[in-house]
């Protein structure tokens, strides 16, 4: 009666792969689908638009009002990184929580019942998106600096130590991973966003007390990530950052992984 039940197209009237002939879903495809899911919703798209807009405004303001010797490539890069530090975790949170907050998990986890694969695909997709955003921010910074040299006649200063580039990339990855971790552990978009902003902030304030100074140097993610972003990492700094990452990423990821794999999908 309808097109699909017509012999030409009907699934039931032409040969189909039998159960033993069907292969599983390739992992790369899951990653691509998860990546697409992060940007194909209205919220996801606006998130990227807002990030781009804020970067553009900052770059524009710097080109117009910045003092000429401030408009180096390095300064532009560090300026465009500020909004990313705030917004990338939220991108991660939305990616991690959507299946549960919007209940799309009912579809996702029936398409791929091996949830660990979806979980891993989401993490990889999150990191890929983060790196793409970082690349875009570098591009924005380059355009800004170029404009400054042309419009303001600023001296061209493209110097950018590799440590800073590395720190930038690793740092942004850490931010998006912490967002994913919070998202997986809490599985509720608004609560996870509030928690991811509030908890580190509270910890930063608490860590300012002299008696907690030592703990903070090991466990405050914002503090331990500073030398990374400025490209001045020492051996002890790496240890601090590693410890803080373990607490702010590793712990939520373990809790989140357990929840995603075992929780009933409703």
């Amino acid at each position: 009666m309808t097109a699909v039940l017509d012999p030409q197209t009907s699934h039931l009237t032409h040969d189909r792969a039998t159960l033993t002939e069907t292969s599983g879903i390739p992992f790369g495809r899951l990653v691509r689908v998860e990546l697409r899911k992060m940007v194909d919703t209205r919220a996801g798209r606006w998130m990227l638009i807002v990030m781009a807009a804020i970067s553009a405004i900052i770059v524009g303001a710097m080109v117009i009002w910045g003092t000429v010797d401030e408009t180096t490539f390095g300064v532009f890069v560090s300026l465009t990184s500020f909004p990313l530090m705030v917004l990338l975790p939220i991108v991660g949170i939305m990616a991690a929580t959507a299946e549960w907050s919007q209940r799309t998990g009912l579809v996702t986890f029936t398409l791929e019942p091996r949830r660990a694969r979806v979980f891993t695909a989401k993490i990889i997709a999150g990191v890929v998106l983060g790196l793409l955003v970082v690349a875009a921010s570098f591009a924005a910074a380059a355009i800004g600096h170029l404009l400054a040299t042309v419009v303001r006649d600023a001296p061209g200063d493209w110097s950018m130590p590799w440590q800073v580039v590395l720190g930038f990339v690793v740092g942004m990855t850490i931010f998006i991973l912490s967002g994913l971790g919070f998202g997986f552990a809490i599985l509720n978009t608004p609560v996870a966003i509030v928690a991811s902003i509030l908890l580190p902030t509270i910890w930063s304030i608490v860590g300012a007390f002299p008696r907690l100074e030592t703990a903070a140097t090991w466990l405050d993610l914002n503090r331990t990530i500073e030398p990374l972003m400025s490209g001045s990492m020492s051996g002890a700094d790496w240890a601090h950052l590693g410890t803080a990452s373990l607490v702010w990423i590793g712990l939520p990821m373990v809790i989140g992984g357990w929840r995603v794999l075992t929780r009933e999908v409703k």
Partner: protein
Amino acid sequence: MITVTNLTKRYGSFTAVGDISFDVAPGSVVGFLGPNGAGKSTAMRMMTGLTPPTSGRSTILGREYKDLPNPARHVGVMLDAAAQHPGRTGREVLHLIGKTIGAPKARVEQSLELVGLTPDESKRRVRNYSLGMRQRLGLAGALMGDPQVLILDEPANGLDPQGIHWMRQLLRAYADQGGTVLLSSHLLHEVQIIADELVMIGRGKIVAQGRKEELLGAQGTRVASLDNERLAGALRAAALEVTGDRSGLHVQATPEQVGRIALSAEVVLTELHTTGSEGLEQLFLSLTAADSRDSAAA
């Protein structure tokens, strides 16, 4: 082919689904019927690997759901049409499904056409969809992988009468070509026009199951005449069980038996048929009354 064997789910001391067993054979539509909260959705979530059963098992095409390599290629599942991301377009929802399971690109258009969503509608965001449109989209998603088995939770919910008629034809044609369909509903009328077999469930337990005709056939005959009182007397005299009111009688007998008695009692009949929907409705109500939430009111 769906096989459910002693499937049970307990939450603490509460038994959501208690030891249910049934089969759905290829070429048939089985209606999974029960009041709200009877355990239909929990049972379906267990069949599709979303909820781990406390005990028992269910297989589709001989395997547990989680052991199907690419499940959507064999089983189309729609568990809740409302569970769609509101910020995605309908087309995008199908596109994601197609990409995940590796369906050909043209399948998106095919599925949209099949469920009667226009290209314009498919470009709107799900936020702006009516429940009926979401049901159609959910069904399109279930059909994306060209499955031979369909598991649909409340697929007719929110559809208008024309939509229900459409779905009935679609699922009927699908089963007639060898497909296997399990669908749930809390509304008897929806199910009885579509299903070949019924599994009735109340408070997690199966209260009746069998072919629709058998369940219906046990329900006797409805009769109305110009003199119901005299007819009722004659029927009772023949030791038949009679209930009814002024509008008509309900008799535990075949229409033939009733007709013969009316003939000998010389009563003019105005209506005579096996009880259809109202009979099954009564069965449904009586079987589930003790289990339903409204038992006190009823």
